[in-house]
């Protein structure tokens, strides 16, 4: 896969993340170096409170880095206007949408907002892109249903379709599998894998489903207190990185099965 290495969608340089108040800075992680390639599915894992959300917030320009830069398609995130950035990167967040009275089609159509005119009229091209997003996520039968009529799994698919309709090189999802049952967790992550391959988009998600991520991701970013490591799942296993994820008193990583086991 040599051609892949030639196109880096997202890159960080000397990135330090954390919070700054007037008096002092709280550094959560320093010197983060991440490179996300085109068409890759990337899983971000780490224990609760380790700073996954802070990292995602910094990558998506919701909060400013303490030091360093985030580049998307070799341009610093800070240099993008809000609308330009919305054409580069789409988000799926953990928070529920404000109005559940939208139909699935309307919800997905809102993904075209960065491209539509002042009153939000959809062009024929917009409709084509929306329908493509609906097909890619198998939502054809549901597209006229209202959001409050959907299950959590269906709604998550609709949110992913909305991000697809935004037509960006990069899609970032914050814990897309929470609230879902085991089947739908696998279903959503499998869907993301397929979308990354079919559409050649870069898809980054944070998750606690480490075993599923190991099986499906091209690259994984592992956040621990000491550092942020990114590598292919196989290399991460053989390096023993997963053993550093959690405190060692309760669970241990089993290299043969690729998941965590409770200590007897």
């Amino acid at each position, binding site marked *: 896969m040599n051609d892949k290495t030639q196109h880096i969608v997202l890159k960080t340089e000397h990135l330090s993340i954390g919070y700054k108040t007037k008096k002092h800075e709280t550094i959560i992680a320093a010197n983060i170096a991440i490179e996300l390639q085109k068409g890759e599915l990337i899983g971000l894992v780490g224990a609760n409170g380790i700073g996954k959300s802070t990292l995602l917030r910094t990558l998506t320009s919701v909060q400013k880095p303490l030091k360093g830069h985030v580049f998307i398609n070799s341009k610093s995130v800070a240099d993008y206007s*809000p609308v330009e950035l919305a054409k580069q990167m789409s*988000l799926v967040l953990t928070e529920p949408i*404000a*109005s559940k*009275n939208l139909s699935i089609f309307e919800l997905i*159509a*809102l993904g075209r907002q*960065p491209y539509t005119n002042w009153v939000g009229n*959809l062009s024929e091209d917009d409709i084509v892109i929306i329908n493509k997003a609906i097909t890619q996520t198998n939502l054809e039968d549901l597209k006229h249903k209202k959001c409050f009529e959907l299950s959590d799994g269906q709604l998550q698919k609709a949110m992913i379709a909305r991000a697809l309709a935004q037509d960006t090189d990069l899609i970032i999802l914050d814990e897309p599998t929470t609230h879902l049952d085991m089947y739908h967790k696998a279903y959503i992550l499998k869907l993301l894998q397929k979308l990354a391959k079919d559409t050649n988009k870069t898809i980054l998600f944070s998750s606690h489903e480490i075993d599923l991520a190991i099986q499906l991701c091209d690259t994984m970013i592992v956040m621990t207190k000491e550092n942020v490591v990114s590598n292919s799942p196989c290399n991460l296993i053989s390096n023993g990185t997963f053993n550093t994820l959690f405190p060692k008193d309760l669970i241990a990583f089993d290299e043969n099965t690729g998941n965590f086991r409770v200590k007897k």
Partner: protein
Amino acid sequence: MSNTSTYRFSFLVLVIVLLVCFFVNVSLGSVSIPTLEIFKSLIGDIDNESWQYIVQDYRLPKAFTAILVGSGLGISGLLMQTLFRNPLAGPFVLGISSGASLGVALVILGSGIFGGVFASLLISKWSVVIAASLGSFMVLLAVMIVSSRVRDTMAILIIGLMFGSITAAVVSVLSYFSSAEQLQQYIFWGFGSLGNLSWQELFIFFIIYSFGIVLSIASIKGLNTLLLGENYAKSLGLNLKQSRLVIIIATSLLAGTITAFAGPIAFIGLAIPHMTRQIFNTSNHKTLLPAVFLFGAIIMLICDSIAQLPTSDYTLPINAITSLIGAPVVIWLLLRKRKMMF
């Protein structure tokens, strides 16, 4: 967003209903005038001069006022409900009516206390209108300064409520020191009134109202984006602070002028958007905005027709009628659908 055309029929019906209501409203009043003569007076071809005067200088301006008030309050209610993602929000959540009340209270009630300066102004209609406008403008200014510093939209809601409490307290203090006659005058202002606006006043009302409507129309895209919530809206490239400011200014212009010219008219701003959502079954503001406009105007015309108790000499306070008619309708709609649309 694609199904605007399917509502064409509903809109046509609403426009016809609006025209009918308008005509009925103009036809009814304490003096009964034959329907044919009403038609004639509308085109200015009538012999009876007093009928001509009643229709052209009293009933017509009142009917137009009703349309402006109903549509303006409905739209500002819709803007607030979407901005604050709260079905209980209405045009006055930002404390605009409280500001206006304070201004009016200062003129009516304060004239006794402060004497001199205010008393010489006399309590003419214009001084009430100016006081109400100044009052709502001061509150608007305060809310805008605060909202440019606050990141959380909910904080603006609470700050608006606080301004409301402060002004209500000042009004209480003023009331305590006022005479019964002044109190009565203030309470009558609080009942709201659509009548006694001259064409000239109506013209000024209409100009400010139009600015509010234009800003509302300009906010349609932003309002639709806000249906996803603020963080999603930002990720779609929406300039949140700017959109928020435009929405707040639009609401203030609409609710502020309406309160200044017609008094603090309750309920319509809260109820109309709910009725419209129930009937049109959509959250898309491209459909909702014109629908709320028509609905607001229709309901206000109906309420006013009832309030003037046709053929009697009495006119009920419009504020009482809007709630008496509106509240049961909203309850009925909610019971029928069993589902809150928002």
